[in-house]
C-alpha cells in the first residue's frame, strides 16, 4: 500500500510541475521534470543503441526541449504525464534515427506519429486511468518471460516482428501470437 501511495504522490507532483511549466514557464518545475525523466529517456535510447552514450544524451535533451515547448498542449484528461513523455520520446527517437540515416525511408515519421502529442483528431478522455495503470503494472509483472521479452524488444529495442523473429529464432507467427497474448493479458484492448 505504501508503495502505491508514494507512486500516486509522485504522479501528482510530476503533473503539477508540468502545469507550472505550461502556465508560468517555471524553470524549477522543469528542473524537477528533467531529473525525473532524463535518466529514463536515456535508458530508453540505450535499450535500442547500447553503449551510444552521446545519442542518449542528445535524445534526452531533444525530448526535454519538447516538454518545455509543448507543455501547454499536454492534457491530463487524455494521458498521464508518463505516457505523454513516452510518446514524445518514441517520436523523437524514430525521427532521430531517420535523420541520421539508420534507416532509409521516403516517409516522414513526424507526419505519422506527431499528431498524438497534441490533442489528436479524436481525443478521448481516459476513464479509470489509475485503475488501468495498476492493471498494466500488475499484468506486466505476471507475464511469462517469453512474452515480456518480446514486448521489451518491440517497445524498447524498437524491433519489428520480423527482426524479433530472426533474433529469437522463432517463427514470425509465434512472435505475433506472443504479442497478442501479452497485450490481451494486460487487458488494454477491452473496450469499456
Amino acid at each position: 500500500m505504501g508503495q502505491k501511495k508514494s507512486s500516486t504522490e509522485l504522479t501528482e507532483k510530476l503533473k503539477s510541475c508540468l502545469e507550472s511549466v505550461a502556465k508560468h514557464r517555471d524553470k524549477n518545475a522543469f528542473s524537477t521534470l528533467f531529473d525525473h525523466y532524463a535518466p529514463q529517456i536515456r535508458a530508453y535510447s540505450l535499450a535500442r543503441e547500447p553503449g551510444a552514450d552521446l545519442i542518449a544524451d542528445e535524445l534526452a535533451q531533444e525530448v526535454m526541449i519538447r516538454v518545455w515547448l509543448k507543455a501547454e498542449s499536454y492534457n491530463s484528461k487524455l494521458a498521464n504525464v508518463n505516457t505523454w513523455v513516452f510518446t514524445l520520446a518514441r517520436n523523437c527517437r524514430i525521427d532521430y534515427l531517420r535523420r541520421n540515416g539508420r534507416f532509409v525511408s521516403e516517409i516522414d515519421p513526424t507526419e505519422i506519429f506527431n499528431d498524438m502529442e497534441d490533442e489528436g483528431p479524436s481525443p478521448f478522455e481516459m476513464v479509470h486511468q489509475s485503475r488501468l495503470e495498476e492493471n498494466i503494472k500488475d499484468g506486466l509483472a505476471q507475464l511469462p518471460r517469453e512474452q515480456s521479452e518480446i514486448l521489451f524488444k518491440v517497445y524498447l529495442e524498437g524491433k519489428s516482428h520480423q527482426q524479433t523473429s530472426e533474433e529469437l529464432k522463432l517463427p514470425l507467427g509465434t512472435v505475433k501470437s506472443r504479442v497478442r497474448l501479452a497485450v490481451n493479458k494486460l487487458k488494454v484492448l477491452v473496450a469499456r
Partner: protein
Amino acid sequence: MNTIKNHPSDELLTSYSAASLPLSQALCVSVHLESCDECARKLQRLNQVGSELMRQLKPSPPSPDLKSNLLEQLDSLVEDTENDRIEDIDKSVPRCLHQFIDKGFGEISWKRISRDIKSYELCRDQNNAKVELLRIRPGGTSSTHTHMGDEYTVILEGSFSDESGLYRRGDFLMRDSRHKHTPVATRDGECICLAVTEAPIQLTGFFGRLLNPLIRRSYVTG
C-alpha cells in the same frame, strides 16, 4: 464512423504504439486511426504499456552539464512552426498523407494500369515496399491475385468487395500469400485506396500469368 468493421490486428497496433514497424505500414495504420475511434482508444492504452515499460528500465544519469546547458538555453527556444503551414488540401485527404498530396485526389496525375484501375505511386519504403494510391472505377475489378509478400490496404473513398466481404471508407485490410482475392469496386462510385505492397503480387488468372513477368519487372525498376 461506426461502419468500420475491419481493423489492424492487435499485434500490428502494438508495433505502431512502439513505432517499431516499417513506416509504410505505420502510414496505413495512421490513416485508419484518423477515422476509427475504437482503435484510437486502444492505441492510447497501448501507449500506456510503452510508458510503463520505459519506466521500468534502470535509469541512466545524463552527463553532468546536460541539465545546466539546457536550462540556459530555455529562454531562446522557439517552437518549430513548420507543421503549422497553411494547407490548401482537400478534407478527404487524411492528414498523414499531406506529406505526399498537396491538393486533392482529383489533381493527382494518375497513371493508367488497366481499363478499371489507375495508380499513383507515393514512395518506396525501407524494405522496398511500394506505397501507392489505387483508383478503381465504379464496378471495376482488379485481376485475381495472390501476394508474395504482405499487402496492406486502407479505403480512403468509396467501397469495394471481394470474396470475403464488403469494405468501406476507413476499413483496414491485410492480405498475405495465403489469400487469393478479386477486389471489385461497388457500382455506386469509384474507390480510392492506399495500398502498401511488400513484394510483387502474383496474378493467378490466365492473362494474369502472362502479365506476371511484366509486373515483376515494373516492380523492380518502378
